[in-house]
């Protein structure tokens, strides 16, 4: 498939611009991103948002797939604890993120590359800060490299993914 000179977004003066896949829940964080837009807040252009109804829809496989396909970081945005539009989907997300971080560690991926943020619909500024900080953090971490423990990757991943699924 032609890629039409897309390299530019991943290469800047200092060589590395992290690529972030962001899963935002429809009710809080996606709306906060809309608010940041209507408020014309400026932030780093590194995140690509995928909308889900609830952060609880984020299957651990989505996160692993994003890393496998070259994301340098994954940002999950949900409603604040107690504020979930679906009562408690965000708690499920929190649980999964804790387990996923363990899996990532075993795969040789820095756990900071998976970030969870509670951002309500009114917090456009918080969204801006989250994206900017995460981008900055990933710049420091550098590009994702998953070369190291190839065995661990194949052995642990399927089991762990199931464990995490609950």
């Amino acid at each position, binding site marked *: *498939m*032609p*890629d*039409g000179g*897309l*390299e*530019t*977004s*991943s290469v800047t003066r200092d060589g590395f611009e992290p*690529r972030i*896949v962001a899963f935002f829940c429809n*009710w*809080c964080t*996606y*709306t906060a*991103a*809309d608010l*940041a*837009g*209507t408020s*014309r*807040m*400026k*932030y780093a*252009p590194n995140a*690509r*948002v*995928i*909308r*889900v*109804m*609830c952060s*609880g*829809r*984020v*299957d*651990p*496989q*989505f996160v692993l*797939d*994003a890393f496998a*396909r*070259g*994301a340098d970081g994954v940002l999950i945005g949900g409603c604040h604890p*107690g*504020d979930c*539009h*679906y*009562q408690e*989907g965000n708690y*499920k997300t929190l649980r*999964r993120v804790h387990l996923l971080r363990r899996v990532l560690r075993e795969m040789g991926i820095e756990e900071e590359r998976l970030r969870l943020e509670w951002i*309500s*619909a*009114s*917090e456009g500024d918080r969204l*801006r800060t989250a994206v900017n900080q995460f981008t900055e953090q990933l710049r420091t971490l550098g590009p994702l490299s998953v070369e190291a423990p190839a065995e661990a990757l194949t052995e642990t991943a399927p089991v762990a993914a*199931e464990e995490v*699924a*609950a």
Partner: protein
Amino acid sequence: MREPEISPDGAVRVGVYICHCGTNIAGTIDVRAVTEYAATLPHVVVARDYKYMCSDPGQTLIQQDIRDHHLTRIIVASCSPLLHEHTFRAATAGGGLNPYHFQMVNIREHASWVHEDRQAATEKAKDLVRAAVFRVYFHEPLERREVPINPDVLVVGGGIAGIHAALTLAGARKHVYLVEREPSIGGHMAKFDKTFPTLDCAACILTPKMTAVRTNPHITLWTYSEVVGVEGYVGNFKVTVKRKPRYVIEDLCVGCAECIEACVYKAARFPDEFNLGLGKRKPIYLPFPQAVPLVAVIDPETCIEFKSGKCKKTCVEVCGERNAIDFTQEEHTETIEVGTIILATGFQVFDAKRIPYYGYGVYPNVYTALEVERLVNASGPTSGEVVLRDGRTPKSVAIVHCVGSRDENTNRYCSRVCCMYSLKLAHLIKEHTDAEVYNFYIDMRTPGKGFEEFYNRVAEEGTQLIRGKVADVYPEPGDGGRLIVQAEDTLLGKVRKIPVDMVVLAVGLEPQADAQDVRRMFNITCSTEGFFLERHPKLAPVNTFTDGIFLAGACQGPKDIPDTVAQAGSAAAEALALIDAGTVELEPNTAYVVEEACSGCKTCVPLCPYSAISFMEATQKAQINEVLCKGCGVCVAACPSGSIRQHLFQDEEIFEEIKGVLAHA
């Protein structure tokens, strides 16, 4: 399965439309480059850009292309789907396709408006468009679910907003439950003396509407009651209402007030809530003379019978055969079913003690504007005489604007009504006392019908208008008892210290203290400053993000009475539109179980907050009740065998988006 293939019959034919949104998008994103790029993506048959895709010609363009190019998938890259997804789905359907063969890409709120680097924003737009192109390959035709709408409506809050909404709905012969927390409806408006700019007496325009609520057969009025639980969804809400005991039986009390007269307390000695503590009441009281319902209330905190059980109960004696007093009443709950809900929970005034240098609560002659409303009111604690706490009539009065508004330290927003009510109070105080009145303002904001004229009138009457933010209020040296109001007059360019007898703080409007709890209960959102958030500030000002729940009045943001009434009417009309349609269509984003793949592990069952998932013992499989499912997708993500799927958010669709946004690596 995850690789998009060209289907054998060539059925997937994608049309991509990039919107300029005038210069909103085109100003930052190279729309042409994105369009040209989109044309190179798999299955894309047509890629176009257009100034305003949401306009009629824009929509027609899509529909024409569907016919001419036999398109089967439509992608529009423009604003947020929360704004125009509905519009474009309808356009897609109008062209003869299933509306769910449409996908929207947000390149305005999420790209052109938040990035300055044209190249980076353009690349981001390309990535997002590519993700959509990959995604739509897997889109399936879906049918909206249709559910009936219960025609009954719940209105929460009995201020002018709730009253007006309830009466409008009742006028259309819909049954309304009006729930009010206080013992009487009327809200803040019932406390006002006159209303700007016409100086109509608030009671004269409000109390007939309050009476109309009481007598209307289509309205069930529950005062001294609070909503404590809400379940369900648009068309079918189940609401639990807590009804507090007033210890007087509403149906038996005639409001004669003889019990109050007969109370063992000969004099009223407890602070009267309605008069903000400026007046006194007895343990048994009527909230105010025009209260609706006109039913006495007993305050168990101060009533001797409740405190010691040894009262002579002269109130019961005098009530006699009416037998309306019942000390055994207990709090109870009622459950009602309604199809739509209007929230009209109002505001609270800013707590002036939060700005200590204005001396509220320290110097007795510093009042809030709402307190002065009671003082100038003929039915208020002083029968309309503006007097200080020591009984003197003030000879000079300072009115301080913007207390708790337009202030970095408290609230940054303008409360919209304070300039006008401050001018009104200046007029009324002058009228009642002939005092010299000084209004200290930052900017005079009088936009509204007849407002500027009123401002001119008050200025001509001789009110001193001083442009300057008050920096301090302190006692005059000596024992004159006056207060010095200090401000920098920004028109004269010098500091002024004006001695006055009375200081009136024009307190701003704030969200109710429990707005966050109410928001959670009704599953809606708040804006940054804590007022309930409307679905769209311009196009859906009374809708919320939760279908079937509407907003009216100051719970959505500070506003005056005309705007409140207009919004209440609008909320009622929105509810009526749903009710008259009879049914409502729900998003088909429900989860479902692919039985062959289900291993019967029951992982999903406890995860569902709506108990929509059950385990079928006979088949040893999970089953999802589509009516109960709200489409969060938690179970889908959790299913270890991948046998739970979700319409609109299928695994393939999301994996394609991931692949799409990252494809240029």
